């Protein structure tokens, strides 16, 4: 009798537990974003993937920033890096990070969604409704707040709307050095949702509002789901023959001595070394 009671209690408890879990499962309201995502476009693609990189992007730059961009293109044509600081492993930051030159994984939690990148630090999207905390230091990734939207009213969220601000720089939109304003007052708005006809495509509509532009600039990016992902290890390392002193770039010669990157580049400042007679 005691045995029967105990088993009965156990069964009842277990069934209740199962019911709770299944009911909560039916209330699972987030879309199927949890996966590895890749951008099929090449890493040299421009910010707007529907147009070639460089001037052909037809970015709505102000005259001042158009001139900065053209100087960057000229510098790159001459062998420099222009406004593309990636070679010194400065973080891409937002919105360039969402180019996904390497794969990304999304993890959704009720108040926080993670974008985990192979080649960058994780991005946190705060979806708990809280404002950015006071004193939050500016960063390349900025501070992201998000909101899940049930656009088709089927009881399940289908769009993640994100706003990101509180930046530091310098940041560029792509490898050509397409610039953002140095005041770092950028506001990035994103809408992420699965393609209606193909759940293996994640769409990201990104609108960048920045004083380097004459108007908000919206581009659409598509990420492809990878069903059996593998993750390789990546960590940014500058080219072995590159030497960065602050934001100035130099080269290491075959003889191990410092060399200029371009003609007439001045040597680095040596004020902290004692002159030979003082050593």
């Amino acid at each position: 009798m005691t045995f029967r009671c105990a088993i009965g209690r156990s069964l009842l408890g277990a069934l209740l537990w199962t019911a709770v879990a299944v009911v909560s499962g039916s209330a699972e309201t987030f879309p199927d974003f949890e996966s590895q995502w890749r951008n099929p476009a090449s890493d040299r693609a421009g910010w707007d993937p529907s147009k070639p990189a460089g001037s052909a992007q037809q970015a709505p730059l102000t005259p001042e920033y158009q001139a900065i961009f053209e100087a960057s293109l000229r510098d790159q044509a001459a062998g420099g890096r222009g406004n593309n600081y990636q070679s010194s492993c400065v973080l891409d930051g937002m919105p360039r990070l969402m180019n996904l030159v390497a794969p990304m994984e999304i993890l959704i939690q009720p108040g926080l969604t993670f974008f985990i990148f192979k080649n960058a630090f994780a991005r946190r999207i705060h979806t708990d409704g809280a404002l950015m905390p006071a004193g939050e230091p500016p960063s390349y990734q900025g501070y992201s707040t998000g909101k899940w939207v049930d656009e088709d009213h089927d009881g399940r969220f289908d769009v993640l709307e994100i706003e990101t601000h509180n930046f530091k720089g310098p940041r560029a939109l792509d490898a050509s050095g397409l610039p953002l304003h140095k005041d770092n007052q950028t506001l990035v708005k994103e809408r992420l949702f699965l393609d209606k006809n193909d759940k293996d495509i994640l769409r990201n509509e990104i609108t960048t509002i920045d004083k380097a532009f004459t108007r908000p600039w919206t581009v659409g990016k598509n990420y492809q789901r990878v069903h059996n992902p593998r993750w390789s290890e990546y960590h940014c390392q500058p080219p072995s023959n590159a030497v960065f002193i602050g934001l100035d770039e130099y080269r290491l010669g075959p003889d191990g001595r410092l060399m200029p990157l371009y003609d007439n580049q001045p040597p680095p400042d040596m004020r902290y070394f004692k002159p030979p007679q003082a050593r």
Partner: protein
Amino acid sequence: MKNRMQETFDRIATGLKVLFALLALAIAGVPAAARDTLYPDLASQWRNPTAGRGGNPWDPNKPMGLGQQAPLTAEYQAKFEASLKAQKEGGQGSSRGSTCEIAGMPKMMNFAEPMEIVIRPKVTYFIPMQVPARRIYTDGRDWPADEPPTLGGYSIGKWIDQDGDGRYDVLEVETRNFTGPRVFESTGLPLHEDNATIVKEKIYLDRNNSDILHDEITTIDNALSRPWTVDRIYLRVRVPLWIEKNCHESNPHLTIGREEYFLSADNKLMPVRKDQPPPDLRHFKQPQ
């Protein structure tokens, strides 16, 4: 007799709970609420209390360097002492920190910067602030045959319900398949260059304080005369602040050829030792 029967009932009850839990997970596609009741609460930010206090010793109960009393073989003890000597003279020794390369396992569990843990049934993620995430596969997979070796290695884990209450409480992890060089701490405490390291971890919440997370890390390595176990501790931060920090930007160390230098706060080259000459600028047209 009664106690034995009660024990049997308890075991059956636990078994049924786990069985129905798994059934529920299968039906409901692993809903968040089920995950929350099956796995321990590891949410929020975790910080290493020994970080940022002028060092980050591998065994947190002992001072860095020789004070660690690491069970090194004679060969690797000599390498370690050479590293310490080089550092005393202003160099980096065997420490890889100045290169901004990933520390790799097991040093990456030092967590000089805070991290967050996310649990999914098939993968547990350690998401640090400063380096890419660590994935621990808990889906029962075997060691892959063609995985390229990495500094972080390949981690396979298993959740254990040690106290039989129907809820997992310990994550056991084994990590293999390494490349190198790797060290335990910034003093250059070395691992063997054959990279045949095996790292075993037991990760669990402290029984008396659920805001303390233990990671018992046992390192088996040919640089060591015996397996070396340390108990690393992380403290939960309920209201976390995440500060972006890029090693390459905050790294004041610079190497030109074979010479090491230091970058000043105003981004100018500085000597790392007394009377160190400046780099040879003969390739520049107007050397200062």
